[in-house]
């Protein structure tokens, strides 16, 4: 009875006004900074730049190439994997690629989500002189490190997250650096990339004009 009274009073109070649902127009989508290129961007202003990566996150489907790959099949080569093609689920700036285990950033409702996903991070690295870049690197399942487009370190098909130290000789200069990650199997994951040594500076790409 109290409910009915409230409803009646409420309606009378409204006086049959024209109060209606109003749909706020959705915000226009901002222009992505990487439109028209591969996310590499331009070298930053080394005197004034932030240590960060552009991270592009992709969801994978349970029937994608390489996902839950049988033991007797081999993962296609990196340049044949389609994980990083198309439009990412989202992108953001990441200041650290030390995510560790039980890290599930992508969930858009696919079957088995959030299990299978891939990420591409892009940045620029500058070696102040000839140096040895030391990287703490680990992943389950896969991580590739590319400098100027060449794979310089990788972990592929790892069944456990066990970081290791990798050395990469670098001549003095600036390079684009890219890290690709994929999680294709099981319900355990892991990702670590950390610069552990070397006379280097790492900054986010410049997407300005």
């Amino acid at each position, binding site marked *: 009875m109290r*409910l009915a009274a409230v409803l009646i009073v409420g309606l009378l109070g409204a006086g049959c006004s024209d109060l209606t649902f109003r749909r706020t127009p959705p915000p226009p989508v901002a222009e992505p*900074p990487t439109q028209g290129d591969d996310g590499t961007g331009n070298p930053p202003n080394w005197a004034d730049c932030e240590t960060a990566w552009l991270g592009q996150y992709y969801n994978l489907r349970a029937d994608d190439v390489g996902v839950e790959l049988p033991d007797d099949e081999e993962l296609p080569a990196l340049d044949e994997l389609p994980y990083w093609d198309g439009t990412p689920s989202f992108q953001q700036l990441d200041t650290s690629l030390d995510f560790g285990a*039980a890290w599930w950033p992508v969930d858009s409702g696919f079957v088995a989500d959030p299990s299978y996903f891939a990420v591409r991070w892009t940045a620029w690295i500058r070696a102040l002189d000839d140096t040895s870049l030391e990287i703490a690197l680990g992943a389950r399942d896969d991580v590739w490190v590319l400098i100027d487009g060449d794979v310089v370190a990788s972990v592929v098909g790892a069944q456990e997250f066990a970081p290791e130290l990798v050395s990469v000789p670098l001549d003095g200069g600036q390079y684009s650096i890219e890290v690709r990650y994929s999680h294709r199997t099981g319900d355990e994951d892991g990702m670590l990339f950390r610069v552990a040594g070397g006379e280097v500076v790492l900054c986010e790409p410049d997407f300005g004009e």
Partner: protein
Amino acid sequence: MALRAGIAGCIVLLVGCPSDGGDEPPTPTVVLPDISGIDFPAAMAQALELTFSADLRAAWTGHGASLELTRSGCPDFWVTDEDAEWRDHCTTFAGIAWNGEAAWSNALVVDGDPESALGVTTVGARSLDGAAQVDDGPELLFGFSGTGDDSLYVSEAPGYLQWRYASRVDARVRGTAAYPADGPTPGGMLLGLDLSYSGGATSELFARGDVHLPGGVLAGRFDSVSLDVTLDGPGAALPDECVTEPRGWISLRDTDAVWYDLILQPRFTDDATVDPYPNEPYSLCEGCGTLYVRGVESAQVCVDFASLFDGRLQPPDPGGYVLPIREQLGQ
């Protein structure tokens, strides 16, 4: 009968409303609650604080406390090197009643040397599943129905620290061993919640899901929280004014089942990568959002989220992941 008559009256009133267009259908009408007395910034902040405390730890604490009350044969246990389970309907001589089943596991892996360039990584994982109830006479000590897991990751090297804690709980958790009777949620929680937060070199908060407080009230009015929100904290690659700027949405439900939705910045756009983000007012980093009540835009609400990064959110002690099951059982 009176209720039916009232509802019929409402329908008559709705149909009877005049419209400008003559033959046009009547304009839908919505009855909005009075929100003038609600401190939404405080309520939203309290909801966030509550949400980020709604992890597996309370259930694990209740589970661990109940295991200290077992006696030989009550309940029955099945233990392997990796996990354990109790399953029974029994009562100990001390009057502790066990009903249902609960399975759990926990593991901790520490690898490396903190003084080396590679450093040391610590990975802990726990899980709890079941439909279990433990009573001490009339008092419910621990009840758990559903599944949950949490994980701890710590990465340390000379001059470097990064940690992350993540929890997923889809369960009804209750009982005084998990939620003290004099605490803020004595009736326990009904959770369908994923959350994580990190600290050290960079910090971030994430939460997605639902929190319901059976018999409890948040900010004097609300009994449920639903949200999908991300906050970048200190160390994030954002303009200074955008650090601790939340993205996503937070909704509160009052005890009359009316939802209040606070819409913040969109989560999955490029707002973190463009400065200035050409999409005002959505791009303004001021901690404000638009409050919708029953879908009707009602107010601007600004919330101070910075307090979540004041150190109150800490990872659990790694020791909680390492206790062997046989020690938990006191055997």
